[in-house]
């Protein structure tokens, strides 16, 4: 259960840099989530930890030891491939048992015909058969154990991939979007199961996803990435409450954090705290930290555009008066008892304790001084 440390780790393919140098460290037993949009380099980073992709520059350390040159096998990992990478000529049972069988086979036993006999005898051993049955049960794969991957649906294949990696007892779990193809019910269940497994085994997990619910619920620490650059490293709460820049602010959270441009702030200085209005920064507020009040109250005058009820709550989209377009739209999360109708003029009030400021030019978070208590 290694502690991972990245020191100026970077990756390029030829001239294209897909991962910029970064430093980070992950404590032993953490559940690290790599979160970011498609193509940002999550799989590349995960494969570098696994030793499947070469590190172009920098050092990766497990428990203080440089592992750049370590073979995959030496790293003792479990890996779920984004593409599943099942063995097409083996049955589901043989796929799942493969890591267990490999652990128990001696080098000379890998001869074509002899090997097959030894493998099927190994697979009947209770410690292997029992493990395979247990994990197949957990992932509802029992009916498919004797099929080959070609005869399975995408979600079933993904479960086999997950089963094959969870059947072992490695020191490091690396999972690349392992739940992306499952239905909502199974995904929720697996989320709980993986979290429970993490708590039980206490090993280090690195989990790639672009699903922020997974990130927020499972992670003990999140690395948010975009365009090959690490945007922020922190606990789910830190990332959510104190986004490091406008990318993180809008990528994490659903609906995203509202970004109010300096022009609008300058046009309605009384609606904001004095320090904020003068700062010339972008103002970021989460939808749940906004309140709608009736016209005439102090605050930012807006017009209601859309009201979307989702049951317990409602998402109300409003437009600052005199503005139009997606850019300036502000979303408010309100109780479903709020009765607002389209076109209604209201006033938007901010919770000053939950306001983030971002530099208008760079998008980087501006540390707040005395303005907010």
């Amino acid at each position, binding site marked *: 259960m290694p502690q991972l440390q990245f020191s100026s780790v970077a990756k390029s393919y030829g001239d294209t840099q897909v991962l910029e140098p970064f430093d980070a460290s992950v404590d032993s037993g953490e559940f690290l989530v790599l979160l970011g949009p498609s193509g940002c380099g999550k799989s590349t980073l995960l494969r570098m930890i*696994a030793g*499947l992709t070469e590190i172009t520059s920098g050092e990766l350390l497990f428990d203080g030891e440089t592992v750049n040159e370590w*073979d*995959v*096998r030496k790293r003792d*990992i*479990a*890996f779920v*491939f984004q*593409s599943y*990478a*099942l*063995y*097409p*000529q*083996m049955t589901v049972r043989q796929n799942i048992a*493969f*890591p267990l069988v*490999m*652990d128990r*086979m001696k*080098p000379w036993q*890998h*001869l*074509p015909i002899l*090997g097959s006999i030894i493998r099927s005898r190994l697979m009947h051993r209770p410690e292997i058969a029992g493990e395979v049955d247990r994990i197949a049960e957990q992932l509802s794969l029992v009916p498919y154990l004797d*099929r*080959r991957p*070609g*005869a399975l649906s995408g979600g079933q294949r993904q479960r086999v991939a997950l089963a*094959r*990696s969870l059947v*072992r007892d490695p020191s490091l779990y690396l999972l690349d979007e392992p739940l992306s193809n499952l239905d909502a019910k199974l995904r929720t269940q697996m989320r709980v199961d993986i979290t429970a497994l993490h708590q039980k085994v206490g090993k280090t997990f690195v989990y790639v996803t672009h699903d922020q619910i997974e990130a927020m619920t499972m992670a003990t620490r999140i690395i948010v990435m975009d365009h090959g650059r690490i945007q922020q490293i922190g606990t789910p709460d830190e990332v959510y409450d104190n986004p490091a820049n406008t990318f993180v602010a809008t990528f994490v959270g659903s609906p995203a954090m509202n970004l109010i441009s300096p022009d609008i702030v300058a046009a309605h200085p009384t609606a904001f705290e004095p320090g904020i209005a003068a700062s010339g920064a972008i103002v970021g507020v989460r939808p749940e930290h906004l309140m709608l009040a009736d016209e005439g109250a102090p605050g930012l005058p807006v017009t209601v555009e859309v009201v979307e009820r989702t049951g317990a709550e409602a998402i109300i989209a409003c437009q600052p008066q005199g503005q139009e377009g997606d850019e300036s739209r502000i979303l408010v999360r309100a109780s479903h008892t709020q009765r607002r109708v389209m076109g209604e003029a209201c006033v938007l009030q901010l919770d000053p304790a939950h306001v983030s400021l971002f530099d208008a030019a760079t998008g980087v978070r501006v540390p707040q001084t005395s303005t907010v208590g």
Partner: protein
Amino acid sequence: MTATANPRVSRSPRLRLTRALRGVATPAALLIAPMVLLAFMVFWPLLQQIWISLTDARLTNPGGGSFVGLENFEALMAGTALPQVLANTLAYTLGSTGLALVMGTLAALVVNTRFRGHGFVKGVLASPWAIPPVAAASIWLWMFSESRGIFNRIIEGAGGEPVAWLTSEPWAMVSVILVTAWQFAPLVMLVTLSALKSVPDEVAEASRVDGASAVATFTWVVWPHILPTFRLLGILLVIESLRRWDIIAVMTGGGPVMSTSTIVVAIQRQAFQYQEVGMGAAYAMIGITLAVIFALAYLMVERRAEKRNGR
């Protein structure tokens, strides 16, 4: 009912008829040409061959022999030549196929590791394939030469006794097998190489993650993947070496004392040297039977593999 459900299905009976006809007519039209060609170029000569094998035709008048029933076959069964020719054929066919498969696969595995200059090595290893068999056999003839050949020079240099490569048993058979395999191996290498490249990278990586060594990855992941290609190569080479005549003819002429006479060599000798076309045809029938047995065995194995894959 179903027709009305789909507005695109024609409503008028005449249209429906043309459509139905078109469904059958197209494949039929496409099949007619090859069928006719096959009939003229394969089935007709085959029938002729069967007929000739039942006559006492001679080379001077190949079409004119008189019907002798199974006499040719009886003569073959009674003689001592047939068992030896069959044994030679099997040894030559399986020997050169097996050796070519092993050499070609090893070469493919080496080239596939992508060391510096692997493209060049691949080109060199593939070149025997491009040399005409007779020319190849002549080159080897020189290398196998008892007094001046490079092999004997090496053996003598190491203090050994020179070997009569082409004129003693069993070395004559070993030599022709070696040369034939040398000619086949590049094909095996190129085809196996493309099969190796079609193993998905991530599947091979998964086996490394799962703790498989390089050898284990080959046995459990790569080998099953290239096995169908390998079987196909096997049957192609078996059929090819069953009909191979040129290399043996140039190197040993079937000797010494018939020890490298395969069925094709025997056919040639019976039909053209002894001018007994009828006997030659009888040998040919046995050769065809062998080829059919190998082909059927291949098809059976293939069918079983397909069933196992659930297709």
